[in-house]
């Protein structure tokens, strides 16, 4: 151990002799490790954030979406296949269903006096708030009796943007569907609590109006964007899913063997898909980080080769003084590892700092630097150090002492 510590000291002295060069050699690994740590932090944060959202969906929810429209094998959009009747039929037919809530979605502009805001327009039914445990902060969510009324409910952020500190409930607003340019005036019935997401929607910057009014007066289409089905019993969701599928196949007159024109998503299935997506995202990020690490490793190897050539005579002297080949090999390996570890440490700090900066500047990204990332970063730094140091160190250790002592 004492000998190894002395080798570390000798290696450090070697590096300190050319401090700037040594620091420049650390840069490659620093950037590589920094990229890995930042990538892991962003991935971990984003995955956690989305996972939390999906977990908040509740295990007793099933989302029915129109099937995908394909052209030449590629998904180009969604079909128009879900209708209000489907939701009604589901509620009537399936005994494990507590509610089947239809939904349409559009991009709208809301005008209140001189203030304008672009936001998501959600056409939902009276059950929307209940099935997502979404409470009004002021006023009352529209009831089943108001399904044809021109009443609107505002997300907390949208209400704040439009009204500031002034009361929103009871005010009149004008909503324009930006896709169809249809326009309608609504009475604000409620301002909702801050929630983030309800179901698959970001609701804080959304306006919610009765689904029938939205379809008829603003969108001009009889097709739904989704139906949210809430089961009575979270333990019987497989049966619920099967029942929904059976009813909709019958409703849509889909023959056995024929492809369905709708998709059923459960929390479990969404998490599975999410894992796939994050895995692909991860592979891309880690590949980029891996390339930086390889480049960093080549940088260290280059510097170490220069160091070996520069210190050929010193190696000869050390051999004359009794250094074994293994001692010389170890000295240069330790030197490469120190460069790499230093780069790794700086990379961890840089990656951590960068991911926090991203979180601060974007405000929507949640980053988390897991311990796993630090362990990986250190392991990679050591790995790169050993990998890039082995050839120069081997070259140094194989020098002929006589030739090395003669080297000018």
């Amino acid at each position, binding site marked *: 151990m004492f*000998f190894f510590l002395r080798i570390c000291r000798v290696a450090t002295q070697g590096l300190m002799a050319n401090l700037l060069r040594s620091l420049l050699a650390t840069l490659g690994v620093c950037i590589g490790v920094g990229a890995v740590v930042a990538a892991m932090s962003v991935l971990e944060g984003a995955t956690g954030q989305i996972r939390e959202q999906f977990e908040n969906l509740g295990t007793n929810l099933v989302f029915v979406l129109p099937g995908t429209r394909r052209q030449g094998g590629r998904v180009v959009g969604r079909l128009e296949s879900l209708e209000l009747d489907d939701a009604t039929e589901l509620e009537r037919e399936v005994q494990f269903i507590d509610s089947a809530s239809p939904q349409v979605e559009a991009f709208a502009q809301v005008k209140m006096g001189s203030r304008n805001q672009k936001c998501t327009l959600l056409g939902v039914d009276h059950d929307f708030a209940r099935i997502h445990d979404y409470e009004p902060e002021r006023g009352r969510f529209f009831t089943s009796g108001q399904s044809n009324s021109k009443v609107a409910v505002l997300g907390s952020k949208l209400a704040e943007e439009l009204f500031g500190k002034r009361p929103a409930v009871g005010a009149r607003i004008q909503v324009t569907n930006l896709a169809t340019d249809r326009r309608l005036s609504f009475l604000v019935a409620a301002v909702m609590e801050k929630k983030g997401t309800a179901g698959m929607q970001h609701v804080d910057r959304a306006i919610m109006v009765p689904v029938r009014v939205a379809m008829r007066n603003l969108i001009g289409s009889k097709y739904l964007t989704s139906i949210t089905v809430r089961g009575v019993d979270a333990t019987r969701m497989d049966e619920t899913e099967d029942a929904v599928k059976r009813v909709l196949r019958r409703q849509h007159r889909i023959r056995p063997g024929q492809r369905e024109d709708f998709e059923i998503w459960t929390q479990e299935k969404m998490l599975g898909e999410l894992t796939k997506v994050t895995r692909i995202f991860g592979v891309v990020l880690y590949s980029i980080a891996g390339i930086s690490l390889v480049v960093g490793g080549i940088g260290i190897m280059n510097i170490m080769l220069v160091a070996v050539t520069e210190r050929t005579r010193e190696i000869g002297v050390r*051999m*004359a*003084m*009794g*250094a*074994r*080949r293994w001692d010389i090999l170890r000295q240069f390996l330790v030197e490469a590892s120190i460069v790499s570890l230093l780069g790794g440490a700086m990379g961890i700090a840089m990656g951590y700092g960068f991911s926090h900066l991203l979180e601060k500047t974007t405000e929507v990204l949640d980053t988390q630097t897991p311990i796993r990332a630090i362990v990986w970063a250190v392991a990679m730094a050591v790995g790169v150090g050993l990998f890039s140091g082995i050839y120069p160190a081997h070259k140094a250790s194989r020098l002929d002492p006589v030739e090395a*002592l003669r080297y000018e």
Partner: protein
Amino acid sequence: MALIEIRNLVKHYRMGDSLVRALDGVNVTVERGDFVSITGPSGSGKSTLMHLLGCLDRPTRGTYHLDGQLISSMGDAQLAAIRNRSIGFVFQTFNLINRTSAMDNVTVPLFYARKTRLHRPALEALERVGLAQRAGHKPSELSGGERQRVAIARALVNEPAILLADEPTGNLDSRTGRQILRIFHQLHTEGVTVVLVTHEMDVAVQAQRIIRMRDGKIVEDLPVDDTMRARAASAEWHEAGGETAATADLPSQAPAAPTDAGGPGGRE
């Protein structure tokens, strides 16, 4: 048993298409406590012999026994251990590691001997050459003579069986060269076996015995006497037109210990 016993030592190199016979059947015996000079013109094979004596190289043929051990058949690791334990090198160009202090340079052989106590023996070795007070200085802060004395301290620190010096005064002015030779004399009187490789006759005659080489062979192996010293001094005196390194203030037969005035303790 002799300290060094070399029999029919042959070293051949291949240089391009031709074969260089650097050593061609050399026989040498060096007893413990000897002070031997190996001399000869360039290309005579004296450096090759020094490399073999110093276990830095292996012979093509022949045997080399050092302290009873057969060196010529040893592997790399064993040779490294022998170099560390039994041989102290002093080079013409000092070969100190410039980025570390005199003390750190002297600890190098102790470090490779896996010793845990480095400081005290290194300081003692520096004291032996009168440089303890400069232990913390880097080679760049030392004069040529001081650097060579640090190199001698480094060579001595593991108490080696032989001190091998390759042109130790070659890079020094004559006055400093004399001081270095005085240290070798002192070490010799303390019982250290010294082998000096030099092409300068006035330096070579400071030993008890001269081995002269030519074309890879030993052509003369003689004890040094006063006549030889006087002849070397006179030749040098005529060449230099005055005082020479060998004759100025060195003893003719009995080696002298370094003195304070102009000795190794002072700065050059």
